[in-house]
């Protein structure tokens, strides 16, 4: 139990440090949102000054950080200059959209990769393995951007799928079931890109973890005892392969918010990625910090979840 507490503390400290770093980075950057406004002759310098004071731009860094921390404790994340609205609702909506995509594709990707990897490891060296490994390698050498754009062009040319956005125009007016179907149709393309992009790495890791486990002495001994193959695979080998797979799963969770930026931009999916990009270009300070922090929470949290799962799954860790 103490182990878990230690890991949690570690994660919390990491998060705190990351928030400081993020704040530092963004605040030290030259130029801020209001400098752009200064170029606009319609805004008087008085208004500008009032705005700046309102947002505490001129206060020292530490003060701003403290104020931000306090508001964080209240569940607020600061104010967006560009949208003239508090940050959290904006971020949360976008994060929800992103998670819709990434959770679906992560689950699907694992659902496909696990059996493929296990299968491939089981028949290591035979044609099944070769096909799977070959296909993985092929996918691996095609970078995400090429994959995404390629599938997009395919979608555009065949007109089978909608080519952008999350919902069709006027979907609010549709009946409930139709709305869901509309959403689903829009998800197919980005999810496909994400799943295909994740496959090679996942399959490769699953395959190597299971293959190594199958080589282990105790598995071979069990096989020699005549334990049926299926049981061998699932109850023996998979448990031995669990550790690296759990870590990988933790990583998958970690990138739920940050791994889909490119896909979202390409398919015009209104997720966190494009939103953050826009904010970065507009120097919308608190949006950027809030977004980066949210993603970091997932990254650090993913690791922590992996730690918890490992603790639960591996008795060796419990005795440390």
């Amino acid at each position, binding site marked *: 139990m103490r182990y878990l507490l230690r890991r949690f503390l570690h994660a919390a400290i990491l998060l705190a440090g990351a928030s400081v770093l993020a704040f530092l980075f963004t605040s030290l950057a030259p130029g801020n949102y209001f400098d752009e406004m200064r170029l606009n002759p319609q805004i008087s310098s008085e208004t500008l000054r009032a705005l700046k004071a309102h947002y505490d731009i001129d206060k020292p860094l530490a003060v701003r950080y403290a104020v931000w921390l306090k508001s964080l404790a209240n569940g607020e994340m600061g104010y967006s200059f560009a949208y003239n609205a508090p940050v959290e609702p904006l971020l949360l909506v976008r994060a929800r959209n992103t998670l819709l995509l990434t959770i679906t594709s992560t689950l699907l990707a694992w659902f496909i990769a696990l059996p493929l990897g296990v299968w491939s490891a089981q028949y290591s060296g035979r044609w099944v393995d070769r096909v799977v490994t070959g296909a993985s390698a092929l996918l691996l050498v095609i970078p995400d951007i090429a994959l995404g754009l390629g599938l997009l062009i395919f979608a555009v040319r065949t007109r089978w799928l909608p080519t952008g956005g999350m919902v069709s125009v006027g979907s609010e007016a549709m009946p409930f079931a139709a709305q869901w179907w509309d959403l689903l149709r829009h998800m197919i393309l980005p999810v496909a890109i994400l799943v295909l992009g994740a496959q090679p790495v996942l399959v490769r890791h699953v395959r190597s973890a299971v293959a190594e486990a199958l080589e282990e002495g105790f598995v071979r001994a069990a096989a020699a005892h005549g334990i049926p193959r299926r049981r061998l695979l699932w109850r023996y080998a998979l448990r031995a392969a669990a550790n690296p797979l759990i870590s990988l799963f933790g990583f998958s969770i970690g990138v739920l918010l940050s791994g889909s930026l490119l896909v979202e931009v390409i398919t015009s999916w209104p997720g966190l990625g494009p939103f953050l990009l826009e904010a970065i270009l507009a120097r919308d300070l608190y949006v950027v910090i809030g977004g980066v922090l949210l993603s970091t929470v997932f*990254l650090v949290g993913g690791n922590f979840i992996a730690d918890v799962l490992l603790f639960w799954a591996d008795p060796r860790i419990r005795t440390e």
Partner: protein
Amino acid sequence: MKSAPQRQRVIVTLLVLLHGIVLVGGFVAPYDPVRQDRDRPYAPPAGIHFADGQGKFHLRPFVYAQRLREGSFDQYEDDHSKLIPLKFFVSGASYRLLGVIPAKVHLFGADEETANLLGTDGYGRDLFSRIIHGGQISLFAGLLAAGVSLLVGTIVGSASGYLGGWTDSIAMRLAELCLALPWLYLLFGVRAFLPLLVSPVKAFLIVVTTIGVLGWARPARLVRGVALSAKERDFVRAAQGFGASNSYILRRHILPQTKSVILTQAAILIPQYILAEVTLSFLGLGIPEPAPSWGNLLSSLQQYSVLSSYWWMYLPAMAMVPFFFGYLALSSTLQEGRRAAKIDS
């Protein structure tokens, strides 16, 4: 299958060849990548033919001239009445070979005519030339950035691992922090917060430095591991017994041991960083117009009209594939080699 060192040599040869083609890009590319031809925006690729409409076989390959289709303002068709032969070693726009030697000879071309083997972009610029020159920039950016990462990572990692104590603790905590932040966002953030409207050269340097410096943590950790185990070895103790200074030991005994780790990391980082530059440029945060980069060549695809009508604008994406294949194959043979070496030792 061939043995690992043999395979390595084949792959390295392939990579060198590919990079070589891009290196002498000015020679290979028929046209100046920034030369616009506003009369021929989005012209499709001109197919290479050996036999013409009458069934006559020509020894010299040729393309058809293109003309606008009747009633269309953006659809082209081949004009079978006009054959443009392709000549080799033609004199064309001047360029600098390897960035230094002024030259005018190109690998192939069509003299006064234009033959766009891969079509043109919205400004009528030859896509083939832009892909080659863009490759120069993207590849070079990736290689340079990897070099920066490895340099910073090696310095920090070896010092951290060898000296231990506070240096080590602080460095590794910092590394952990850097690795905890989402890399892509960090990249965008840092890049976007630096001046955006700069010359292509400055942008290139900014991009390379940003990608390289932000990626120091992983190589640093790996090098640190090597330094940690190396410093326990007897020959280091022996050298210390002879009065060796820390810098001597780092230089003569520890750093040479890091070579294989650095090489493996390089094979992994280079394609990652090429992709990072491509992504940055694609999103407008990288190399600005008119300089070509594989990334900004693809950014026009963000417009629906381009996506649906001008498929050849996708080709720069395919140009990356052979390079990634080479690097991937290289890193897997390197890893195999290290595994085999471990078994032998």
